[in-house]
Each structure stands twice: as C-alpha cells, then as structure tokens.
C-alpha cells in the first residue's frame, strides 16, 4: 500500500489538514477503482467500509499479491475537519462540501479542497464509489441511487454491489454541484451508495456493502479472488416509490424497521402530540411493498418524510 497526501493545508494551531489516498497497485489495463468516504463528516458507515477494504487489501498484498490485478485507490476521510467535529458540514463555514463541486463556486478553502479531490479522482479512476449515510432524520436500507441520465453506464456496475435496491430517479438541479454528478458528467462512472444513518455504524450493513465492493472489484477484473454470490438488487423506478409524509407536526414513534415487506394498511408508527398527550394519527402504509426508508428522528414538522416504500403490485 502506498499512501499519498493529495492535499495538505497548514492550520492555525499547527497540525496540517490532510486528505490521504491509499493505493494498492498492479500494472495492468484493468479499470482503476476508487473509493471515497467522509464527504459529510457525520456519515461514518463509509469509513467503516474503507477500513475493511484497507485491512483486507493489506493482508492480500502479503498472502496473495498476484490477486491484485489493477489499481485500487481509497480516500477514507475526505472532509477531515468535519469528521474531527462529527458535523455534516465543513465546520468553519457551515458549507456542504458535496454542494461545491460544480463550476463557478465562490472561492473558499472548501471549494479549493473539493476541486483538488475531483481532479485527483478524475485522473486516477475509471470507476468511483462515493459512500454516504443518510442525514440525522432518516434510516436507509443499503441502496444505490442513479440519476436517469447515467443509468446505461451505471446500472451494470451497480448490480455487482450487493445492495438491497437500486433507485433510478430523475435529475434535479441540486445534484449539479455534487461529486458524483460531476464525475459522471466528466465520463468517469461514479456510484453513490447510501446506507444507514449518520453518526452510527451498522456493521451488518457495512459488511454487506464490503462484500459488494469485493465483488465489484472481482467483476471489473481488478481483483482475482473467490467470492460467494451477492444478492440481486431490486430495481426501482421513481414512480414505484411511495413517500409517506407527516400531515401534522409532532413526534413520530416508529413501530417497524427498514427492510420489512409491508402490507397495504400495515402500521408504520404513530404521530403524537407531546404537549397535549394525544395520538394525532396512526401512520399506515399506503401500499404493499418494501420499506426502504424510515424516519429515525422523532421530531417532525408538517410535510416531513416518514417513510419510503417500493410499491409492489399484486397480480390479480
């Protein structure tokens, strides 16, 4: 393993802020695959997966170095300031680094950092995997989200990743400044893997995706290893996704867990009024299908998302 500092910035109190890149390399024409974690400093699942990948590849370098057929780059902590503070945003400016990758951004240290990362990834990767967890509010089943415009290139790769579902959705203006969008726009395929919730690590989900990453490396010819088969992901189009929103503000008390197959009308939880002591509404599933997103933070305002379900149509 070779380690390189792609960015080093002097800090006011001494130790520099650095972004590290670990490379496991073999000379070949196999695709170079890069893994990125920690763009949001409170999303830790990706760090766990990178830890597992680094550990595995280090052992492989000793036990079976011939198995490494191509170049693998791991960027385990690309927003070190935010990770240090366990905050989603770049702490000094409350800036979402994953909204600074497009053109014409206002000059700042965060923007300079994101541009260096983008250029480094573009110059050293044929495939990029960007690990994310959800925000403070929602728990997500392991999934890959693909913008419809990039479906043709990304879907074959995504199927190798051992996720529960692949959600193909339309483009939205806000994506234009994200890392993955800008890589895909530059013709470097980039998959966004989303799992769990911020501030937490769920080793089962992390292990599942770790196995998926090994499978992806195997399928692309970058690693030559024996593997168990991975799960077939559910392909989901946007019109199959039913969102349940809070009709009123209150506290949401969940009564199910993500990954459950729900029947139409099955209870998801209840919305309560903490001040008056009343139950405002029993929240039920509007359809039958796979529950893949669930509200974890109980505090909700009117319109807040409570759940997302992949609707499964029953044959009559």
């Amino acid at each position, binding site marked *: 393993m070779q380690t390189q500092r792609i960015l080093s910035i*002097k800090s006011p*109190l001494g130790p520099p802020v650095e972004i590290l890149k670990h490379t496991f390399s073999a000379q070949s024409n196999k695709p170079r695959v890069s893994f990125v974690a920690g763009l949001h400093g409170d999303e830790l699942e990706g760090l766990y997966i990178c830890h597992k990948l680094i550990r595995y590849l280090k052992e492989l370098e000793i036990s079976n170095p011939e198995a490494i057929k191509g170049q693998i780059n791991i960027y385990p902590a690309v927003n070190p300031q935010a990770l240090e503070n366990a905050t989603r945003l770049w702490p000094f*400016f409350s800036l979402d680094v994953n909204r600074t990758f497009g053109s*014409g*951004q206002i000059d700042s*240290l965060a923007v300079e950092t994101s541009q260096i990362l983008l250029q480094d990834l573009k110059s050293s990767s044929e495939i990029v995997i960007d690990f994310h967890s959800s925000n403070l509010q929602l728990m997500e089943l392991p999934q890959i989200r693909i913008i419809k415009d990039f479906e043709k290139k990304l879907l074959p790769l995504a199927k190798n990743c051992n996720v529960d579902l692949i959600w193909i959705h339309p483009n939205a203006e806000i994506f234009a*400044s994200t890392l993955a969008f800008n890589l895909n726009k530059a013709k470097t395929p980039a998959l966004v893997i989303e799992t769990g919730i911020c501030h937490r690590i769920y080793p089962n989900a992390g292990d599942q995706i770790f196995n998926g990453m090994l499978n992806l490396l195997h399928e692309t010819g970058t690693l030559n290893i024996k593997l168990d088969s991975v799960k077939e992901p559910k392909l989901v189009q946007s019109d199959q996704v039913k969102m349940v929103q809070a009709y009123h503000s209150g506290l949401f008390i969940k009564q199910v867990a993500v990954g459950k197959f729900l029947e139409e009308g099955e209870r998801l939880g209840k919305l309560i009024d903490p001040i008056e002591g009343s139950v405002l509404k029993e929240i039920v599933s509007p359809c039958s299908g796979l529950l893949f997103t669930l509200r974890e933070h109980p*505090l909700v305002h009117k*319109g807040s998302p409570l759940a997302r379900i992949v609707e499964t149509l029953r044959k009559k």
Partner: protein
Amino acid sequence: MKEKILTLPTPYGENLELYKNVWGKAGESLSIVSGLQGDHLNGLFLNSQLTQFLDRVIEGLDPHYTLTGQVQTFPVVNINAVQSGTRLWPLDGMDMDLAFPGNSQGETTEAIAYMILEHTQDSFWGLILTSAPPHYEDAPHIQVYKSNNSVKKMCRDLKIETVRKQKEYSTQKVNLFHHWQEQEISSVMISAGSPRTINLQQCENLFQGILNFMKAEGILKDHRKKDSENKGKTRIYQPDEEVLVKTSTAGIFVTEVKVGSYLKQGQKIGEVRDIYSGKKLEELISSEDGLLITLRQYPIVYEKEPVAIVLKAKNSWREYFPWNR
C-alpha cells in the same frame, strides 16, 4: 400592513408563521426579500426601516411622499435560523437559498420557499438583501448575473456604484434570484456588511438608495418636486476583474485596511502572525490598484484562504463602448 402568508403547526407549541408587509394596490410592484440566511441582519434592519417609512407614508404622517405603486417586503424568510442565531435552518442544516422553487406539500423549508416564490413571481422589480459569506465583510455592492440596460438602470437608481457580475455556478438554479430571473423580474442582489452584525451607516445609505429607486421608477412620489438622482456612476466588474488575495500561512490575520477603501498596488492589506509565538509569518499585499470589496473579518485563518477580494481599478475595454457608459 403585515399579512400572514403561511401558517405551519410546530411539534411543541405556537405555530410557525411567515409574514410579508404590503403597501399600495395599483401599479407595478417591487418585492424586497431579506433574511434568507438567518445571520444576514443588515437586510432585516433595512427592511424594518422601510416598513416604518412606508407605514408613515400610507397613514399620511409623512407629508412629502405618496405611494403610487406597490411594495411588498419579506423581512424574514429563514424564520427558525433567525430565532436560533444561525445561518442555516437549524433542524437539518438546510440553506434556505438552496430550497427554491420549493414545494407546497414538502418540508417546512420547501413550503416557505414555495410561498415566497408564489408571492413574488408577479413582481416587476425584486431586491434580495444579503451580507457577505461567514467570516467576511462586504462593502455595499450589487450582484447580478446579467447586465442588461434594465439592470444597469436599477443599479444607477439605487445609487450603488459597484456592481459585480457573478459567474454562473452549479447551484444557482435552486436560488430565489435565479427563479426571479427566469420570471423576467428586473432584480438584483444587494450585499453589504458582515453576518451577525448591523451596520447602521450602510443601512442608512441603502435605505436612501431604495427610496431613490422607488422615486425613479414611479413607485413613490416626492411632493417637493425633487427628482430622483440617477446621475451616479455605476461600474460593472466582470468576474475576471476580481483579484483574490490568499494566505500562504496559517495563524491570526491582522488587517490594516478597511473594506470599501481603494488600494494601491503593493499596499499592505494585513499580516498573518503565528498564534503561539506572535511572530509575523507573512504580509498580504494587493497586487493591483483597486477597490477592496470583501475583507476577512474573522482573524483565524488557514493556509490558502482568501482574505480579500480586490476589484481591479483599471478601465475595462468594455467601458469604452458608448452603450456601456
């Protein structure tokens, strides 16, 4: 005339309420929005001054003026951020100016954004009042994406000399300003001061500028037969006329100049000192003659951080064309 335009229940008590102020019923309308970021307080204060003034005009307490057009102000958009003393929506760190066009059925920030756009999309003119980004201070100036004749006239009538033409950037399509431009509302953003502070002198100057604008556009009539002043010279700076001054060390930045001042090439802007030893690590100087439009306010700096933006003083070739004068 305070009007409630949105009521949303909250989990713990009183409803969240979004307000606008409206004056006048006839004629083309001007919308003025402030408080998109919860820490941009100059705009809030300026809007409160305008409210006080327009209330007096409508109530007949100011004998010099009659309102002949329509004005509506939205003093606070990011309600919970203002209440919490933060820039962003506190619950989820949402930047309100990345929530447009919004969604009437969506989360609170989306519902607010939707309602602001709904109430402003038929305006003829629009002003968005902002301050500098966190840790910086701006000299009062206008920001635009396009510099057509209508925008140039607005700038002159607002009596603001400095206009920065902004680069188009990837998130602008979810900004309020972008949606106003799409609706062909003659609009500009006015930036002045720094977050979390009110600069009374800047607010007073901008207040007089907005009054002059309202007179020039026929929204406000001055019975003293005083014409609006529109002879002010406005200079539009292109993105390539901006010079960034960046640190090459880290420590405490001590400045020696004031934002809004004209700098000479080679003039010292400030220096960076080591926090532990107090020793000078570097001097930061202006590489050009020009206007210091933005200056670092918060003294702790990292390496490679911009501490100043200077707008180059030399005349652009564009200025020699008669239609740009």
